[in-house]
C-alpha cells in the first residue's frame, strides 16, 4: 500500500518536473535576451604619494557622458569624460587643464596599436618617433600632477573608433543629432582604490664561484654584474619597460649563461668569482641596490674588484656610454675603460666615458653604479643614454614597448661585456682573442635573447604590485639558478617615502543612452496612445456617454437625503 502511494507521489513529482521543464523550454524558445553595449579593457593612471604629497589620478570609478576634443567652447565638462587619441593630442591643452585645475569628469587616452605587444608587431608607422616622444612627455606630465578625477589608457580598436567618430559628429553639431543617439555613457564600476600594504622589493642574486688554487687561503676577487628589473610608468598595468630595463635583464641572463658554460669545466674556470644581481626598486633611487649592498658581509664587499651595471642597452645605433663616479684618472677606471674600448674597437662600437661626481648629501641616485660608489666599490654603468635621468624618468613607461628595442643591439652589448670581462678574468688584455666568437659553442644566442625580451615586454613589473611569490620573480630566480651555483632572494620593504594605491586595470562599458527629453517625449506618446486606445474601446463598447461620465463627479448624496 505504502509503496504504491510512494510511487504515485513520485510519479506526480516527475510529471510536474516535466511540465516545468517543458514550460522553461517553451519560454527559452520564445524569449530572446538582449545584448549589452561595447566593453573594452582600460588601464588606470598610477596613484601614489611621495613624501606626503599626492600624485597621479586619485579616483577610479567612472560614470559620465563621453565628449571629444571638438566640444563646443564654453561647454561644461565637469560631468564629461574627454576621449583623446594620442595622435590628436595637444599637450599644451592637457597641461593647461591640469595645471589650472579645471573641472573634468575624467580622461581617456587612446594609444595606437604600436605600443601594445599583441598588435604592435612590426607595423611600420611613420611618425613612430614623434608619437614616442609625445607619449613620453604626456607621461611625465601626468605622473607629476595631482589629478582629482579618473584617468585611463586604452588601445585603439574598431569599436572605440566608431564610438569616437560618432561622438565627434555629435559634438560638432552642438546638439545630439537624433533623439536616440543622445550620447554615450562611459561606466567603470570599480571600488575605491586602497593603499598597497607594505610593498616589497625582491633582489635576486646568483653566485658563480671561481677556481681556487690549491693552498690558497685568500678570498678570490669578485666581479659583479647588476641590472634592475622593475619599472615605473604612468599606467602600472602597461609598464613593461622593454628597454628600461628589460634589455639589461636579458643581457645579464645571457652573460650568466655564457659564463656558466665556461665555469662548468674546471679547466676553463676563471680565478674570479662572479656575482650576478637582479635588483628591484630601481626607479626609487635604486633603493633595492642600496639594501642589497648593505646586506653584504664586509669582506665580500671589499673583495669586489668592480661592478658593471647594465641599463637601457636595447635601442642604440653605434655609441654606448660608460658612466663612472670616480675620476677617469683613477687606475681602476682606466683599466676598465681600456678593456671595454679595445673590444669595442674590434666590434666597431664607439664607447665614451662620462664622469659625474656623487654628492652624498643628495638622496637622488640617478644611476645604479652610484650606490656602489657610495660604499666605496668601484662601479660603472653601461648605457646608451648619455644624460642622467630625473627621478621617475626613463624608468620604462608607456612608450617603452617592444617595438622600439632591437635585439641585435642587445646581442652586441652582450658580446662586448662578456668579451671584456673574459679578457680581464683570464688575463688576455690587449690580445686579440675571440672567446665568444660567432658560430662557436660559446656564441651569443640571439634566440635566447629574443624569447626573454618578448617575455619581459609582456610582463608589467612595477615593484609594489609584484608580490613576494610573483610567478615572474620565481621565473627569474629559476633561470638564474640554472646558470649559477647558488641563488639567494632578499625581500625588503620599499622605503616609506612612497605609498602606492591599487586598482590598476578595469573594464570599461560604453552605453548609448538617450537624452532625458527623449524619455519624456516617449512617455507622452505612449501615454496618449494608451488613453486614445482606452477611450476608443469605451466608446465602441459602451458609448460616448459612459466615457464622459467617468469624468463627471457622481451626484452628491446631500440632495438625496434632503
Amino acid at each position, binding site marked *: 500500500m505504502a509503496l504504491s502511494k510512494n510511487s504515485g507521489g513520485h510519479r506526480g513529482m516527475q510529471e510536474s518536473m516535466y511540465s516545468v521543464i517543458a514550460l522553461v523550454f517553451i519560454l527559452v524558445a520564445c*524569449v530572446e*535576451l538582449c545584448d549589452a553595449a561595447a566593453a573594452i579593457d582600460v588601464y588606470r593612471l598610477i596613484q601614489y604619494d611621495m613624501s606626503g604629497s599626492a600624485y597621479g589620478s586619485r579616483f577610479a570609478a567612472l560614470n559620465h557622458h563621453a565628449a571629444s576634443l571638438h566640444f563646443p567652447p564654453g561647454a561644461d565638462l565637469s560631468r564629461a569624460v574627454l576621449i583623446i587619441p594620442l595622435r590628436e593630442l595637444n599637450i599644451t591643452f592637457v597641461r593647461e587643464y591640469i595645471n589650472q585645475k579645471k573641472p573634468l569628469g575624467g580622461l581617456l587616452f587612446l594609444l595606437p596599436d604600436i605600443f601594445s605587444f599583441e598588435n604592435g608587431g612590426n607595423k611600420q608607422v611613420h611618425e613612430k618617433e614623434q608619437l614616442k616622444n609625445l607619449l613620453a612627455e604626456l607621461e611625465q606630465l601626468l605622473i607629476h600632477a595631482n589629478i582629482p578625477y579618473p584617468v585611463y589608457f586604452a588601445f585603439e580598436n574598431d569599436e572605440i573608433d566608431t564610438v569616437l567618430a560618432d561622438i565627434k559628429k555629435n559634438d560638432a553639431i552642438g546638439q545630439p543629432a537624433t533623439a536616440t543617439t543622445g550620447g554615450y555613457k562611459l561606466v567603470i564600476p570599480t571600488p575605491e582604490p586602497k593603499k598597497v600594504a607594505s610593498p616589497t622589493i625582491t633582489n635576486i642574486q646568483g653566485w658563480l664561484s671561481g677556481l681556487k688554487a690549491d693552498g690558497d687561503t685568500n678570498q678570490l676577487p669578485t666581479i659583479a654584474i647588476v641590472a634592475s628589473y622593475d619599472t615605473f610608468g604612468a599606467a602600472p598595468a602597461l609598464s613593461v619597460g622593454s628597454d628600461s630595463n628589460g634589455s639589461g635583464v636579458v643581457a645579464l641572463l645571457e652573460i650568466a649563461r655564457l659564463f656558466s658554460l665556461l665555469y662548468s669545466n674546471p679547466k676553463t674556470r676563471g680565478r674570479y668569482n662572479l656575482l650576478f644581481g637582479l635588483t628591484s626598486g630601481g626607479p626609487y633611487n635604486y633603493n633595492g641596490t642600496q639594501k642589497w649592498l648593505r646586506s653584504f658581509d664586509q669582506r665580500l664587499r671589499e673583495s669586489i674588484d668592480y661592478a658593471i651595471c647594465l641599463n637601457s642597452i636595447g635601442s642604440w645605433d653605434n655609441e654606448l656610454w660608460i658612466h663612472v663616479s670616480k675620476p677617469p684618472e683613477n687606475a681602476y677606471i682606466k683599466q676598465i675603460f681600456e678593456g671595454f674600448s679595445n673590444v669595442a674597437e674590434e666590434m666597431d662600437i664607439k664607447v665614451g666615458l662620462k664622469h659625474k661626481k656623487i654628492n652624498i648629501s643628495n638622496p637622488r641616485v640617478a644611476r645604479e653604479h652610484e650606490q656602489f660608489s657610495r660604499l666605496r666599490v668601484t662601479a660603472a654603468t653601461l648605457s646608451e643614454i648619455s644624460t642622467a635621468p630625473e627621478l621617475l624618468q626613463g624608468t620604462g613607461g608607456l612608450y617603452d614597448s617592444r617595438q622600439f628595442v632591437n635585439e641585435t643591439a642587445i646581442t652586441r652589448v652582450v658580446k662586448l661585456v662578456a668579451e671584456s670581462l673574459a679578457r680581464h678574468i683570464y688575463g688576455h688584455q690587449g690580445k686579440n682573442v675571440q672567446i665568444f666568437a660567432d658560430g662557436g659553442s660559446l656564441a651569443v644566442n640571439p634566440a635566447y635573447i629574443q624569447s626573454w625580451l618578448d617575455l619581459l615586454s609582456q610582463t608589467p613589473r612595477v615593484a609594489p604590485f609584484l608580490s613576494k611569490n610573483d610567478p615572474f620573480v620565481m621565473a627569474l630566480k629559476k633561470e638564474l639558478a640554472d646558470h649559477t651555483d647558488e641563488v639567494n632572494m632578499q625581500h625588503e620593504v620599499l622605503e616609506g617615502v612612497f605609498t602606492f594605491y591599487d586598482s590598476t586595470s578595469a573594464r570599461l562599458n560604453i552605453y548609448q543612452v538617450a537624452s532625458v527629453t527623449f524619455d519624456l517625449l516617449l512617455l507622452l506618446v505612449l501615454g496618449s496612445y494608451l488613453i486614445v486606445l482606452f477611450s476608443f474601446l469605451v466608446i465602441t463598447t459602451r458609448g460616448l456617454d459612459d466615457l464622459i461620465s467617468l469624468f463627471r463627479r457622481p451626484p452628491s448624496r446631500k440632495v438625496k437625503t434632503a
Partner: protein
Amino acid sequence: MEKFVGYTFQELLKALIGFIDVAGLYLALTQLTHRNISQNHKFQAVGLGWALADSVLHRLAPLWVGARGLEFTWDYILQGLEANANLVLSISLAALGSLIWLRKNKPKTLIPIIYACAGIVATMPSITSYLRRGLGWHFPKVVGFELFTSLVMAFISWQLFSACQRPYV
C-alpha cells in the same frame, strides 16, 4: 544543412505553440462552464485572459531583464505594440472558436470561411517567424504586418459573428 535542420526545428516548435493556443482556447471555451455569461461575453473574456497570459509569459521576462539597462532600444516599444496585435488576434480567435464549437446552427456557406480564418489566425506565430527569418524582415516591419493582419482578421471575424447571429429564424 545544419542551419536548415535548426530552422525547421524552431518552426516546428512555433507551430506546436500555435496548436497549443487553439487547444487551450477550446478547453477554455467548452470545458469551463459559466452559467450567467452570455456567449458574446464568453469569447471576449476567454480571449482577453489568453492574451494576458501570453503577454506575461512571452514578454515580461525580457522586459524585466533588458529594459532596465542603460542603453535604449526600440525593441520593447515594438514588443508592446506586438502585444496589442496579439490581444486582438486572440480575441478574434476566441470568437471564431466560439462560433465553431459553441454555436450549432450556422449558415452552411459560412462554415468553410470560418474554419479558414481560424486556421490563419492559429498559424500566425509561424507566419511571423517565417517573415523574420525566411524573408529577413526587420522587427518594426513584422510588427506593422501583425497589427495590420490583426485588424483585418478582427474585422472579418466580427462580420462572421454578426452574420451568424442574424438568422434567428
